C-alpha cells in the first residue's frame, strides 16, 4: 500500500524522524485553519500518489490567509496526471540550506536491505542515477545485523554530505532504517532530506510503501486503508477477498493462481484482445468464490465477454464445473462466459457443463487456453 505524503510524514514521526509542523485539509477553510496552526509562511501541497506535483502547480507558498485561500481553492480538485486532488497538506515553510536524498528498499538480487544516499536531493533520483551515478552511494545492510551508526556515518562521508550535516544525516538514517524494518516498509524514501540554515536535518517529503503482508501486526495501518484510492471494482473485490486489479479492456478474466491469471492476460493480448481486469481466485475455485468473482466482473460495464481459465490440480474440474453451472443459474450476467477447463477431472467437468444444457450464448467451453482466448476476444471485439 502506497501512503500519501502526509501519511508518510505521520509514519516517520512515529519513528522520531523530524518533519515540519503541519496538517491535512479537505477544504479551503480547513487549509486556512491548518496554516494558522503551522504559522506563516506555509507550503500547500497537493496529496496525490504521483510525481511531478510541483510542475503541475500542486505545490504553492502562502504568506497569509488570503494566499492560502487562493492556492487551496486552485489545488483542491486539480487533476494531476489523472489523479484528482482531494486533500492538501499544509505545513510551515522550511528554510533550506542544502538538499539530499535517502532511501531504504529491499534489494531482491542481493537479498539485503539497500540504502541509497546522495548529496543531490530534491531532483528525481532516477535522473541522478543516469547523469551522475557516482553521486549515489549504495550500501547493502545485512537484515540480521542491521544498520549501525558507524556504518551510517561512513555512508554519509562517502556521499560527500557537508560536514556540518554529517552527524544529523547519519542519525536520521538510523531512524529511517528503523522505520523501514520495524515499520514493515517496502520503500522508505526522503527526497529532499534537507539541512536548515540552523543546522537541523529534516524530512521535507515522504514516500512510503507498506508491505500488505505485514498488516496483521500493524493495527495503525487501518486509517491508511480508509484513504486508499481504489476504483469501485477494486473495493468490491477487496470486500470479497479476491486478488483483483482493474484494467481497461473488454474481456473479463477469472483464473486460479497468479501466474495463470497473468498468463491469461497475455494470451488474450496475443490474439488481439484486451483484458478488463486481473483476477486470481486462488487455489479453491469453489462455487462461493466463483460467484463472488463473477459479481465483481459483472459490476464492470466495459466487460463484453468473460474468460474463465481454470487449471485443476488439487482443485477438481468437475467441482469447478458444478460451481459455474450453479452460478449461471443464480446470477444474471452481463456477458457470455468462455470457459477453459483443464487438468484433474477436466473431462468430467466438461461433461457436466455440456449436460447442464446452458445456451451457447451464455456459456462456451473450449479445451485449450488459446482457443478459449480466441472465442472470448471474438465476442468482445478486438482492441
Amino acid at each position, binding site marked *: 500500500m502506497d501512503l500519501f505524503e502526509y501519511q508518510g510524514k505521520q509514519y516517520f514521526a512515529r519513528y522520531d524522524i523530524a518533519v515540519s509542523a503541519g496538517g491535512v485539509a479537505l477544504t479551503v477553510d480547513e487549509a486556512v485553519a491548518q496554516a494558522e496552526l503551522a504559522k506563516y509562511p506555509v507550503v500547500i501541497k497537493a496529496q496525490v500518489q504521483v510525481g511531478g506535483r510541483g510542475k503541475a502547480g500542486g505545490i504553492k507558498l502562502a504568506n497569509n490567509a488570503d494566499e492560502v485561500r487562493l492556492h487551496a481553492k486552485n489545488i483542491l480538485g486539480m487533476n494531476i496526471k489523472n489523479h484528482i486532488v482531494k486533500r492538501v497538506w499544509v505545513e510551515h515553510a522550511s528554510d533550506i540550506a542544502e538538499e539530499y536524498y535517502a532511501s531504504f528498499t*529491499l534489494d*531482491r*538480487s542481493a*537479498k*539485503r*536491505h539497500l540504502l541509497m544516499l546522495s548529496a543531490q536531493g530534491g531532483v528525481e533520483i*532516477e535522473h541522478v542515477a543516469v547523469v551522475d551515478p557516482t553521486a549515489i552511494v549504495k550500501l547493502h545492510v*545485512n*537484515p*540480521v545485523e542491521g544498520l549501525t551508526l558507524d556504518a551510517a556515518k561512513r555512508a554519509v562521508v562517502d556521499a560527500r554530505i557537508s560536514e556540518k550535516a554529517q552527524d544529523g544525516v547519519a542519525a536520521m538514517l538510523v531512524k529511517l532504517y528503523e522505520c523501514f*524494518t520495524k515499520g*514493515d516498509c*517496502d520503500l522508505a524514501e526522503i527526497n529532499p532530506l534537507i539541512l536548515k540554515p540552523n543546522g537541523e536535518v529534516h524530512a521535507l517529503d515522504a514516500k512510503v510503501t507498506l*508491505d*500488505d*503482508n*505485514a498488516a*496483521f*501486526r500493524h493495527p495503525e495501518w487501518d486509517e491508511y486503508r480508509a484513504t486508499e484510492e481504489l476504483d469501485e471494482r477494486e473495493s468490491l473485490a477487496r470486500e470479497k477477498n479476491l*486478488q483483483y*486489479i482493474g*484494467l481497461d479492456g473488454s474481456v473479463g478474466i477469472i*483464473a*486460479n*493462481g*497468479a*501466474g*495463470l*491469471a*497473468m*498468463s491469461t*492476460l*497475455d*494470451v*488474450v*493480448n*496475443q490474439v488481439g484482445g484486451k*483484458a478488463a481486469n*486481473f483476477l*486470481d481466485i486462488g*487455489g479453491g475455485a469453489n462455487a462461493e468464490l466463483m460467484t463472488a468473482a463473477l459479481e465483481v466482473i459483472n459490476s464492470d460495464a466495459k466487460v463484453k465477454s468473460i474468460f474463465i481459465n481454470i*487449471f*485443476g*490440480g*488439487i482443485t477438481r474440474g468437475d467441482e469447478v464445473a458444478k460451481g459455474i453451472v450453479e452460478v449461471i443459474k443464480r446470477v444474471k450476467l452481463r456477458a457470455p462466459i468462455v470457459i477453459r477447463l*483443464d*487438468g*484433474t477431472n477436466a473431462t468430467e467437468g466438461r461433461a457436466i457443463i455440456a449436460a447442464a444444457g446452458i445456451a451457447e450464448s451464455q456459456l462456451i467451453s473450449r479445451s*485449450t*487456453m*488459446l482457443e478459449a482466448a480466441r472465442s472470448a476476444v471474438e465476442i468482445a471485439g478486438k482492441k
Partner: protein
Amino acid sequence: MAIFVNEKTKVLVQGLTGGQGRFHGLRNRDYGTQVVAGVTPGKAGQDVEGIKIYDTVESAVAATGATASFIAVPPKAAPEAILEAARAGIGFVVCITEGVPAQDEARVFATLQRDFPKTRLLGPNCPGIISPGKCNIGITAGEIAALPTAKGPNVGIVSRSGTLTYQALYELKQRNIGVSTCVGIGGDPVPGTSFVDCLAEFQSDPETHAIIMIGEIGGAAEEEAAEFIMTHVTKPMSAYIAGVTAPAGKKMGHAGAIVSGGKGTAQGKMDALNSAGVKVGLNPTEACELMAQIIASM
C-alpha cells in the same frame, strides 16, 4: 537421481494437525512420500491417521530421522518454524505459507545463510517440489506429473508460479515426456531457493536431460538465471515468462510480481533468456511445444 528430494527423503510436517497441513501432508503420503512425523507444539503423543505428532522438530528428528520438513503454518508462525527446522538440522525445508512479510523473509534468509548454511529453504509461498514416483512435498497434485523413464530423455521444471507449474507438468504428461523433478520456487520477494540454485542442480543431475523454466515479471531473478545459463548450463532449455501485458506499478497477485521503475519487464527477461540460447514461448503451451521439439531431436 532427481534433485533435492528422492525416495529416501524422510519428511516431517510442521502444522500437520492444521487444515492445510493435514490435507496436503496426507496427500503427500498417499503419493508414496515417506511422511514420518508431524510437529505441533503441545500435541505430542497424538497422531494424524497413524502419523505421530511431536512437540518440537528436534524431538521428531531424534525419533524418526527426518531429513526434510514441510511447513504449512500461518504467516505469523512461519519464520520461527523455518528457523526451528534449521536448528534441528533439517537439510531441506519447504514452506508453502502465503503472506509472510518481506522483512521476515529477508531476516530468515540472512539467518540461514549465516548460521545454518547446510539448510536449504524452498519458498515461502511456493507450491513445493515433486520428484515423480519418488517424493512429493507440497500442494502439487501428484497424478498430473509424468514419471521419468530409465533412459530418458527427462525434463526438469523450475517455476515461480504454482498453477503454471501444474500446466507444464500436465502438458508434458500429455506428450509422454518424463519429468525428473519439478520445483516451484514461489513468487515472493526473497525466495529461499532461486532459479540459479535449481539450474545448477539440474545441470549436474544425470537423470535430467533438458530444462523448462517458468518465470514472471518483477525482480531480476530471470536475468540472473540467463547469465548463469550462458556460462554454466549446457542442457537444452525452453522458457515462458508470464506478465507481458501487466501494467507497471501493479502487483499481480504475487508479492514479487511487479514492474517498477521500468525494471523487471517480461520482454527484458525474454530477451535475456533468448540471448542465453533458451527457446522462449509466448504462452505456457508454446514453451512445452518447444520442449517437445527439443526432446524429439535428442
